């Protein structure tokens, strides 16, 4: 009993382990704020950083936005795609957020919440790192730092290079 309590108290009650890590990423097609269609399938072969955010998610989303933008700028030439999905947000507020941080990677709203539920999202920010084969390899809960971005992306880039790609 005591052992159980000790175990229970040491785990974070708000941390929900994602059963999706190691599984194929659920497919989706979204329309970005600037009207372009973006699907996960069209990014196959690239490492995808899928970030769920909201303009009301302060401060974590505000802290990670510059890191995501920096990561996107640094790794875009190396086959990395950053995709932002604004969830439970109002479009004008999302657009203001994008402008505020000068985000240049594609961002799309998820009006019915379908993509976020499909990814088992329970809060913002949450970030999924998807490898070149379309498998979810990592899930970050909370703000992503530049270092965390680099650490989660680099091995996946190297990995597919060593196996010669799919």
């Amino acid at each position, binding site marked *: *009993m005591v052992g*159980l309590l000790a175990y229970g108290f040491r785990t974070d009650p708000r941390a*929900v*382990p*994602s*059963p*999706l890590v190691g599984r194929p990423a659920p497919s989706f097609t979204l329309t970005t704020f600037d009207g372009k269609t973006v699907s996960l399938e069209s990014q196959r072969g690239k490492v995808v950083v899928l970030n769920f955010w909201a303009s009301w998610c302060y401060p974590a989303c505000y802290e990670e936005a510059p890191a995501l933008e920096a990561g996107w700028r640094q790794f875009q030439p190396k086959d990395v795609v950053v995709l932002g999905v604004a969830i*439970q947000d109002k479009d004008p507020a999302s657009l203001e957020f994008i402008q505020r941080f000068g985000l240049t990677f594609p961002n799309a709203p998820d009006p*019915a*919440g*379908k993509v*976020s*539920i*499909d*990814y*088992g*999202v*329970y*809060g913002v920010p949450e970030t999924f790192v998807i490898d070149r084969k379309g498998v979810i390899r990592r899930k970050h809960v909370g703000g992503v730092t530049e270092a965390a971005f680099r650490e989660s992306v680099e091995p996946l880039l190297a990995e597919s290079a060593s196996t010669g790609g799919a």
Partner: protein
Amino acid sequence: MTEPVRRGTTGDSGPRASVGRARRRAGLSVALLALLVAVGVPRVGPAAAVSDEDVHAIASQLRCVVCQNLSVADSPSEMAHQMRDLIRERLDAGDRPDQVKAYFVQRYGDWVLLAPPARGLNLVLWLAPFGAVLGGFVLVLILVRRWRRAPDIVTTATVPAVGPADRERIAAELERLAD
């Protein structure tokens, strides 16, 4: 089908015979309607509407992921609202309730179920109450047995025997009381 019902209930207007017929027809259609409801005919058609109860039945078993201790059915949050819409949509598309639940478990893990499945470490949760009741019962049994045996030990071990000197003294005291 609703027309005869309406005529039957507001039956003052027409001649008597037609009112009677309308009443009969109304009764018949009500019976037919009751039969349809009982048999559950609306579920058979592909265009059958998903009732709020169907959605609620599933939503009440799922944990609202952005709340503390609330089900998807009870939460006013936008996320829960979206989940309820999704449940309805999936039922509408022909998914069975257990398939809908399985979808959420696939995305969020067993954690999303308000009643955790009885397997693995969760078994402790399901079995511990029975274990505790059984343990308590055994404890009570042992204690009751011990208490019932205890008086014998006390009388033989601690109460001193009454000797001739004591008897004499008791008799003397009683005599004094009688005076």
